[in-house]
């Protein structure tokens, strides 16, 4: 849906939402009915590769959940269950030289970019051989030179100006790279989001900003976060293109990302892409999300992004049920092996805590080449 149309449509919806809200119990809206998945011309090998990443995304997270239950994971564990099509669809749309920065739920984006499950397990188990030597956890790492990957911090929204700056750097060197990053519905309320997106728009930077509207910011429903129906309505305020798309349809996500990238490469500035989905688990492992109505979860469950994509692949004759199942069968032992290796890997030596605050000639971080 082109930006203006989307904005208009969602504005109407917003008006409706506002009217209805006053009386009703406050909650996040049910999903709009999903249209059929449509291929915009991707060859079978891409479709199957995307399917594999979706499955890998989910299975890596299942493995992490299992490790967490065993008390192996240090700190918190966040899930992207129900949102995998957003991570995979967006990251798969990029060229390898395009700049990518994940937020906490975008483990799928990292997998597409070539981060190994082993690297992730090492991170979550806080081992010395992890990308951060155990100094930070989760997806908090990057590798600009080899993977065009920039690492996040916990502060939501903070990557928006950072990726605008990365895009600026690339442009000033004559490199035709777009920069893509993510915010949640909640993070659109931050000053970071606003200043970063406006900066990118004023400078016409090729930034693709994915808004993962998963209905909740921790426990907070969208209607207590903002008074618009769709976050795509925020695009016109920055003079930038905006679309709202079904985030459980990986091909819709992929196609919209491609459109946004093209706009960026044509010098038309940033695009705001709202991807609608549902956070199907709690905010993190500890959260039983009592605050989410069951009927909401049930409705969204019918829109599982992997189920939907598998049905499409089978229906369109790209794969049989068995083909698809064999993907999972192939991944499982790889992950078992990676998990074992991570568990056997040493924790950092205590003195490592003191190293690398500033540039130290000779000191190597595994993921950042020594200058």
């Amino acid at each position, binding site marked *: 849906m082109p930006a203006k149309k989307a904005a208009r449509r969602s504005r109407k919806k917003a008006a409706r939402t506002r009217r209805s809200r006053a009386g009703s119990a406050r909650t996040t809206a049910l999903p709009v009915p999903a249209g059929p998945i449509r291929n915009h011309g991707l060859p079978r090998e891409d479709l199957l590769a995307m399917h594999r990443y979706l499955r890998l995304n989910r299975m890596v997270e299942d493995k992490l959940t299992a490790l967490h239950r065993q008390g192996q994971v*240090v*700190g918190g564990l966040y899930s992207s269950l129900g949102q995998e099509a957003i991570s995979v669809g967006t990251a798969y749309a990029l060229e390898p030289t395009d700049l990518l920065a994940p937020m906490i739920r975008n483990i799928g984006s990292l997998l597409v970019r070539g981060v190994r499950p082993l690297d992730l397990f090492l991170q979550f188990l*806080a*081992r*010395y051989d992890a990308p*951060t*030597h*155990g*100094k*930070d*956890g*989760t997806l*908090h790492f990057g590798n600009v030179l080899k993977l065009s990957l920039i690492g996040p*911090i*916990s*502060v*939501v*929204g903070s990557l928006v100006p950072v990726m605008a700056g990365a895009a600026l750097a690339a442009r000033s060197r004559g490199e035709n790279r777009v920069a893509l990053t993510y915010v949640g519905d*909640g*993070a659109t*309320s*931050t*000053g*970071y989001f606003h200043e970063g997106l406006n900066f990118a728009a004023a400078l016409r930077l090729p930034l693709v900003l994915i808004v993962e509207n998963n209905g909740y*910011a*921790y*426990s*907070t429903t969208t209607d*207590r*976060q*903002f008074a618009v129906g769709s976050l795509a309505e925020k695009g016109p305020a920055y003079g930038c293109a905006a679309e709202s798309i079904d985030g459980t349809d990986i091909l819709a996500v992929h196609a919209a990302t491609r459109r946004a990238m093209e706009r960026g490469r044509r010098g038309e500035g940033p695009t705001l892409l709202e991807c609608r989905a549902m956070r199907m688990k709690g905010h993190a492992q500890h959260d039983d999300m009592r*605050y989410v109505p069951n009927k909401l979860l049930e409705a969204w469950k019918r829109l599982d992004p992997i189920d939907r994509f598998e049905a499409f692949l089978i229906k369109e004759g790209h794969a049989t049920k068995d083909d698809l199942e064999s993907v999972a069968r192939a991944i499982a032992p790889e992950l078992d092996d990676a998990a074992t290796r991570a568990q056997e890997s040493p*924790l*950092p*030596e*205590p*003195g*490592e*805590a*003191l190293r690398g*605050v500033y540039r130290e000639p000779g000191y190597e971080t595994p993921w950042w080449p020594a200058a």
Partner: protein
Amino acid sequence: MTASRGATGRKGEAVTTTYLEAIRQGIWEEMEKDDSVFLLGEDIGVYGGAFKVTEGMLERFGASRVIDTPISETAIVGAAIGAALMGMRPVAEMQFIDFIACAFDPITNFAAKSRYRWGGGVPMVIRGPCGGGVHGGPFHSQNPEMYFVHTPGLKVVAPATAYDAKGLIKAAIRDDDPVIYLEHKYLYRRIKEELPKEDYLVPIGRAAVRREGSDLTILTYRAMLYPSLEAAEVLESERGVKTEVIDLRTLLPLDREAILGSARKTGKVLVVHEDTRTGGIAGEITAMINEEVFEHLDGPVLRVTAPDTPVPYSPPLEEFFLPNKDKILAAARKLNAY
């Protein structure tokens, strides 16, 4: 659910209250007492707060006094300032204190300077969980006190005990100036004690002597009180060093009398803080002691602190990073040798 949820222990046990529950009770009581007190922050209503400090409050006090906000630390603090200028007494929660950096401008430029400039008092509390020890990593473990201790116009408190957690939150809410209330997440459920039934306050600006001694003084606060007390125990039992342990409780304004009095008495002062070293409060205290009671010193003022790094995530790194009993003992022995 009632305010005294935590105050009713299992049958037959003494009624003890956790540090977390003490904060909650303190807020609850002030909410009951004074209509102008209200709460705002992320996930504090429906969810009761990421750590459940505000659990049950939405149900009791309603959505106009327990406000779930968007993720907007600047607006949370900004709105609290506006309400405080109107005579309300807002208590704003930072979900983790690390995110207070996003509200740095309204705190340091607006709230802190308002009364001085035109008399516009800002009776506001900002509180949130600080500190390490739970493998939270660089963004869920910080101790930001010095940013605020160095900002005239603010007050900064940092309770170590359940008694103080309650007494200080109540005093902070009643204070007519902006108070940064820095609680420690490691203590939330690990520390408990029996609390008085009646209303009480812990005055802002007063330290507490946790253990008397005449040979050596340890000045500390918040979570570091506990390893300091352990170290004092060892010093006395193994070496006969009578060690005084003072819990600062308030970091701005510091309790000069308590600090200088003890320094004068023992002549040997060790400052222990979990915050990083350079620019930590030990420096300020050392300067104060130098200025006022230098001639009573038998040795240098020493300090045990976290090193100058972000808070690392992996357990062996974080353990190495945090001060502990052994590090305190090593420094105390060095000092004692003077």
